[in-house]
């Protein structure tokens, strides 16, 4: 199946690249410019990279977001809250369980506050709540698809595993620090009603999934295209090994800097991955690249501003600190493990 899709994409890429080249040559001839650049291997490499990766990414995004959306329709946060709140999973088990549920439970960042309040209100321990809150945005399905498409399933799995591990560790530490008093008081005074969880029909699940695919693609396609275009230019013209000197394993600060750069880049998560692919080809080690992606998806400024509504500054600072430190450690660890 994959081989057949790959063949179709390669054929399509060939014709699209050829068509684009003919078009550009026509324009260049018209204005009397030199069109010899179109014969260079750099140009061909960049154009092929652009078409092939764009088609592949959009195809994978559509299929996988659809499947993820179907799976998620079985785990609304209201049900997750019940699962975690019934007291079956206390202690470390609770953290592990919460981090895993974070992967499959959908909520957008504008629902982070109600989800947090709902969990705390129903008696779920603070550390367990954090394990959930961290893994949910960190294991981001768009980032997952991009990683799978561009680096292969091993790296995608690695990304899930590290996301879950960071969520478990950070949740356990926050639980041990006993920081309940640093949650805004009004959270504890909240009385929550009991909403009926609607059980959608299969027709609704499919309809919602299709709707969700369209919604996500509409939101991220410019970032993906710009990201792939930048990646394509780097692919054509930047020599391999360019970055090895600055961001390679010999530079002990590379992971640290990568995490810092990632924090303000939140909205462009989908666009950063094609660039990261090229960065690794140019000599950035995989661990550094993973740290960068995690800080892009999990340590975002907008998310922090939203969480400030329920967390006092001290707990928010502890949260950011723990996340940053664990992400940096994981970056160094993977740089050690992956050759």
């Amino acid at each position, binding site marked *: 199946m994959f081989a057949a899709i790959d063949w179709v994409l390669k054929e399509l890429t060939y014709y699209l690249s050829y068509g684009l080249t003919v078009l550009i040559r026509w324009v260049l001839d018209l204005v009397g410019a030199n069109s010899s650049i179109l014969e260079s291997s750099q140009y061909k490499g960049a154009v092929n990279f652009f078409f092939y990766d764009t088609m592949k990414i959009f195809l994978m995004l559509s299929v996988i977001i659809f499947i993820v959306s179907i799976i998620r329709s079985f785990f*609304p*946060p*209201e049900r997750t*809250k019940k699962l975690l709140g019934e007291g079956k999973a206390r202690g470390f088990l609770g953290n592990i369980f919460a981090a895993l549920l974070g992967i499959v439970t*959908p*909520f*957008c960042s*504008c*629902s982070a*506050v*109600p*989800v947090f*309040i*709902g969990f705390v*209100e129903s008696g779920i321990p603070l550390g367990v709540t954090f394990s959930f809150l961290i893994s949910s945005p960190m294991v981001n399905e768009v980032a997952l698809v991009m990683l799978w498409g561009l680096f292969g399933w091993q790296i995608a799995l690695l990304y899930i595993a590290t996301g879950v591990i960071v969520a478990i560790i950070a949740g356990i530490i926050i639980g041990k620090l006993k920081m309940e008093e640093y949650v805004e008081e*009004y959270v504890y005074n*909240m*009385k*929550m*009603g*009991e*909403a*009926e969880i*609607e059980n959608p029909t299969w027709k609704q699940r499919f309809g*919602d999934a299709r*709707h969700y695919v369209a919604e996500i693609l509409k939101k991220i396609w410019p970032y993906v295209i710009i990201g792939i275009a930048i990646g394509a230019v780097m692919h054509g013209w930047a020599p391999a090994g360019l970055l090895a000197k600055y961001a390679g394993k010999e530079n002990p600060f590379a992971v640290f800097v990568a995490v810092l750069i990632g924090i303000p880049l939140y909205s462009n998560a989908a666009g950063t991955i094609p660039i990261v692919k090229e960065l690794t080809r140019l000599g950035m080690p995989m661990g550094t690249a993973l740290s960068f992606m995690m800080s892009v998806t999990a340590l975002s400024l907008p998310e922090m501003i939203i969480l400030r*509504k329920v967390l006092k500054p001290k707990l928010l600072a502890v949260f950011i600190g723990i996340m940053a430190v664990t992400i940096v450690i994981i970056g160094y660890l993977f740089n050690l493990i992956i050759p």
Partner: protein
Amino acid sequence: MNIKILGSGCSNCKKLQAVTEEAVKDAGVDATIEKVEDIKKIMAYGVMRTPALVINEKIKAFGRIPTKDEIKKYIKEV
């Protein structure tokens, strides 16, 4: 008929409000559309995902934006 849109003011909440207004106009019913942004009131409905659509104090949909036709169906059910 009383319709409430629950949401903290994100873009999806505004979209739901617009769709609801259209649906009410299409259905030709007399309804007041109220926007609820107070998190305490939203939580009281037991909803954790916004936006949510409440008609005559009954939650009809949450965590997604129903289509205009769906909302018209909800209105007719009342």
